C-alpha cells in the first residue's frame, strides 16, 4: 500500500504478481507513454487482445504530450484518450486484483498513484438455443445461457420500461460471482425485494457455481423436500413473472434464473398454457394434476390392494393378477420396491450416460431386465405396468419429478404397512405439511388454501386472459391492475 501511495510502478506490479501467485496466464507488459514508463497487466485467457491493442495501447502510443498534474492526467486519459466499453480508476491493490480476475486490463503509470482499468473481457459463450428442459410447440424458443449480461439483456429487451430495476452484487469469497436481482419497481412489493436483497447480501460462502447454490439461502423452509423457489430457463417466463410482481435472480455462469415468491400451483403451469386456447390449457392442467396423483399414489394403492383389500378389485382383474403373482418370491411390497429401485437406477444411469448409449440402455432396461425378470418369475407384469405408468406420469410435471419420486416411495411404504387407510392419512398429512409452507409471506398452497378467488382464474381451471384483469393476490404487489379495459369492437355487422 505504501508503494501504491508513492506511485512506484515496478514495486506495485511486483506486489500484484506476487499476490496473484505469479500465475502463468498473468501478463505484464511494459511500454513508454510520452517518455513515462507504463505497464499493462491482464489475464491472458480472460481478455481480448485486439481490444487492448486497439483501445488502450494504440491511443497511448500516439500521445505527444500529457498533463503533469496527476488528477488532470487521469481525467485526460480516461475521458479523451482511452476508448472502450468501460474505463474506470482504482486505488487499492485488492480491487485491482479483483477486476483483473474479471477480465479487465490494468494500466499502471510511473509515479502515478491512481490506476486505470479498461474492460477488455473476452466473451466465449454458447449460442442462444431452446432450453432442453422446457421445449415448447408454440411460443418463444430462446433460452438463457451462461452469460448474465446476455440473460439480463434478453429480459430487458422484453420489458421496455424505466421501472425495470436491476440490483447487482457479487457473492462468493473466491468466485466473486455476479448476481443480479431484477424486479419492476412499480409492481413488486418493496418488503419482498428488500428481504431478498438482504438475504443475498448476507451470504458469506467461498463460491457460487450455479443459481441452485442460492436456493437454500433464499427459501424459508430449508429442510423441506418441496422447493419454494421457481426456476426457469426462458426469458418469456421471467418476463411474465416480473409482470406478476415477482422478483428474478440471475447468477453469472448459470442458465437457470430463480423467481420469488413461488407457489405450488406454478408447478402445473407451463408457458405454453398462455399461448394456446384456455380450454385446452385447462384440460392439460387437469391432466398434469391427474399425472401427479397417479405418480405418487398408484404404486401405494396397488400394494395396499394386493396386501389388504383385494376385495375392491373386480373379479376378472383379480383372477388375472392372482395368476400373474402366483409363485413370486417377493411380497407385493418388496416386489414394487424392487421394481422402483430398478427404475431409479436405470433413470440415473441413462441421465449420466453418453447420448449414443441411451438406446442400448433402453434395450437393456426394458427388454433384458424387465422382460427377463418377468419371464423368470421374479416380478409380475401388473407390478411392472403400475410402476411404468407411475414413472411415466412423474414427468408430466418434470420440475417436481425428484419430489414425486420420494413421495411415491413414502406412499408405497404407507400402503404396504397400513393399507389404504395409511395412504389416506398420508394424503391428509401431505396437504397439512404443504399448508404450513410459505414463500415470502405467500401461502404455498394459495390460491387453493387460503382460497383466493381472484387467482383461481389461473389455477387448474384457466380462464381467458381477458378475464385476468388483476395481478395475483396470493402474494403482495403494489399495483393490482393488469388489464385496464377491453374495447369490445366488433369487426362485422353480424
Amino acid at each position, binding site marked *: 500500500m505504501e508503494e501504491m501511495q508513492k506511485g512506484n510502478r515496478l514495486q506495485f506490479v511486483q506486489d500484484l504478481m506476487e499476490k496473484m501467485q505469479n500465475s502463468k496466464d498473468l501478463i505484464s507488459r511494459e511500454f513508454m507513454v510520452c517518455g513515462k514508463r507504463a505497464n499493462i497487466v491482464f489475464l491472458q485467457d480472460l481478455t481480448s487482445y485486439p481490444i487492448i491493442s486497439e483501445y488502450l495501447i494504440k491511443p497511448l502510443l500516439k500521445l505527444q504530450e500529457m498533463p503533469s498534474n496527476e488528477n488532470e492526467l487521469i481525467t485526460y486519459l480516461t475521458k479523451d484518450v482511452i476508448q472502450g466499453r468501460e474505463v474506470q480508476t482504482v486505488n487499492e491493490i485488492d480491487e485491482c486484483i479483483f477486476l483483473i480476475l474479471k477480465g479487465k486490463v490494468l494500466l499502471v503509470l510511473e509515479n502515478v498513484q491512481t490506476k486505470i482499468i479498461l474492460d477488455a473481457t473476452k466473451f466465449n459463450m454458447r449460442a442462444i438455443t431452446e432450453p432442453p428442459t422446457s421445449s415448447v410447440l408454440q411460443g418463444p424458443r430462446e433460452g438463457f445461457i451462461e452469460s448474465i449480461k446476455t440473460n439480463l439483456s434478453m429480459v430487458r429487451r422484453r420489458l421496455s420500461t424505466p421501472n425495470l430495476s436491476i440490483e447487482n452484487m457479487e457473492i462468493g469469497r473466491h468466485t466473486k460471482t455476479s448476481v443480479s436481482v431484477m424486479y419492476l419497481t412499480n409492481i413488486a412489493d418493496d418488503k419482498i425485494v428488500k428481504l431478498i436483497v438482504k438475504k443475498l447480501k448476507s451470504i458469506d460462502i467461498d463460491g457460487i457455481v450455479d443459481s441452485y447454490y442460492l436456493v437454500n439461502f433464499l427459501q424459508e423452509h430449508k429442510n423441506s423436500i418441496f422447493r419454494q423457489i421457481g426456476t426457469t430457463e426462458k426469458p418469456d417466463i421471467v418476463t411474465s413473472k416480473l409482470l406478476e410482481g415477482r422478483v428474478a435472480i440471475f447468477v453469472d455462469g448459470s442458465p437457470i434464473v430463480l423467481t420469488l415468491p413461488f407457489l405450488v400451483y406454478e408447478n402445473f403451469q407451463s408457458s405454453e398454457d398462455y399461448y394456446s386456447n384456455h380450454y385446452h390449457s385447462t384440460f392439460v392442467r387437469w391432466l398434469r394434476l391427474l399425472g401427479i396423483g397417479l405418480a405418487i399414489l398408484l404404486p401405494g394403492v396397488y400394494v395396499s390392494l394386493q396386501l*389388504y*383389500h383385494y*376385495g*375392491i378389485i*373386480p373379479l376378472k382383474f383379480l383372477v388375472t393378477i392372482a395368476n400373474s403373482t402366483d409363485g413370486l418370491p417377493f411380497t407385493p411390497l418388496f416386489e414394487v420396491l424392487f421394481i422402483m429401485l430398478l427404475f431409479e437406477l436405470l433413470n440415473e444411469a441413462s441421465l449420466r450416460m453418453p447420448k449414443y448409449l441411451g438406446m442400448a440402455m433402453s434395450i437393456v432396461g426394458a427388454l433384458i431386465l424387465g422382460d427377463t425378470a418377468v419371464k423368470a418369475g421374479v416380478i409380475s407384469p401388473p407390478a411392472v405396468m403400475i410402476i411404468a405408468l407411475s414413472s411415466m406420469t412423474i414427468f408430466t410435471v418434470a420440475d417436481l419429478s425428484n419430489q414425486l419420486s420420494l413421495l411415491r416411495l413414502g406412499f408405497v411404504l404407507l400402503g404396504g404397512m*397400513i*393399507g*389404504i*387407510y*395409511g395412504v*389416506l*392419512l398420508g*394424503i*391428509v*398429512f401431505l*396437504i*397439512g*405439511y404443504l*399448508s*404450513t409452507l410459505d414463500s415470502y409471506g405467500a*401461502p404455498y*398452497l394459495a390460491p*387453493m*388454501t*387460503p*382460497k383466493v378467488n381472484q387467482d383461481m382464474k389461473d389455477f387448474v381451471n384457466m380462464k381467458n386472459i381477458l378475464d385476468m384483469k388483476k395481478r395475483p393476490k396470493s402474494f403482495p404487489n403494489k399495483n393490482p391492475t393488469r388489464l385496464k379495459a377491453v374495447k369490445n369492437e366488433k369487426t362485422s355487422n353480424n
Partner: protein
Amino acid sequence: MKKLLTTNQICCLIMLVTISNKLLVLPALMYQNVGVDAIWVVVLKLILALVVFWVFALIATKFPNKTLEDILVPYIGKFFYGLLLLLFGVFYFLKTALTLVEGEMFLRETIYVDLTSELYAIPTFVVAGYFIYKGINTIGRTNETLIKIILWGVFLTILLTLPNLQLETLLPMFTSSADDFTRAFSYISMWFGNYFVIFLFLGKIQMREHFISQVIKSYVKSAILVIIFFAVYYAVFGTSSPMHNYAISDVVTLTPQLSSLIKIDWFTVIFYSFALIMQVILQLYMVFYCLKWILKIQHTKLTVSIFIGLLALMYLIMPYSVQHIITFCSETIGFYCFLLNLIFPILITIIYLVKRKLEKNREGEKVYGGTLEKE
C-alpha cells in the same frame, strides 16, 4: 392479534362439523327410536344449529377482535370459564372416542377385515399430533382443501342411490309419540354438538364482507345435504334401515349399474375417511385447547406428544365395545350434552344483549347528562 382463519376456512370447518360422523351409525340409531320421523328430528336439530351459527356469526362481527375468553371472563370469571372449558374438554374427549370407534368399525366392516386397533389408532394419533402442534391454521387450510372432496363424495353418493329410491317407504310420517321424538332429540346431541368448535375461533378470523351470510350459506348447504342423505337412506332401506350401521357405504351397495363392475362402496370409504380424519384432528385439537387453558401448559412438541401419547394409550388399553360407547353417548349423557351445547350460545347472547343495553343506557346518560364529548 394474528388472524388465523379466513372466512372461507371458517365456512369449511362449519361444513365439516355439519357433515362428519352423522352419516355412519346415526341414521340407523335414530330409525330405531323414531322411525322415518328421524328426518324431522334431524331437521329440528339442524335448525337449532342454524340459530347457533347465526349467533356465532353475529357475535364475531360485533366483537371482531375479541376471543371467547375476552368476552366471557369479565362476566363469569376465570374459574367458571375454566369449568366450562373442562366440561367441553370432556365432551370432546368422549366425542373423539365415539368418532374413533365409529371410524374403526366402519373401516373394518367395509374394506379392512384385518384392521387392528393399533394399526388404526397409532398412525391416526401421530397425524393428529402433527396437526395439533401446527395449530388451527394448518387444520383450517387442510380442511379447506379436503372439504370439496367430502362434499362431492356425499353428493355423488346421493346421486348413485337415486335408482334405488322407494319413496313410499318414507310414509307415513309423524307416527312417533312426542315422548319418543323428544328423547331422540336429546339422545343424538353427541353427534350434533360440534358447533361449539367455532366459538373458540372468535377473534381469530379474517372477516370479509357479508360474513354472516357466508356462514349461514355454508351451513345451509351442508345441512341440506345431510337432510337429503337421511331421506335417501330411509327411502332406500325402509324398515331394514336399523340393520345398516354404516349408512354412507351401505346406501350405495344396492346400486345395480356399478355394483357388477366394482365394489363401489369403496369410494365412499375414501372420501368419508377424510371427513373422519379431519373430525378426529379437530376434536383432539379442541381437547388440547381446553386442557392447555386449564393446566396453563405451553404449546410445544413435548406437551403435544405427551397429550397424544396418553390419549393413544387410553384408546388402546381401555376395554370398550362400540355398542357401549354408542349407548353411553346417546342414552346416558345425551341430554346433558344437549344442555352443554347450548351453554355458550346462550351465555354469549345474554352477554351481548346486556352489553348492548348498557351501551344504550350510557349513550342516553351522555346526551341527557351533558357529558357528550365535543366534536
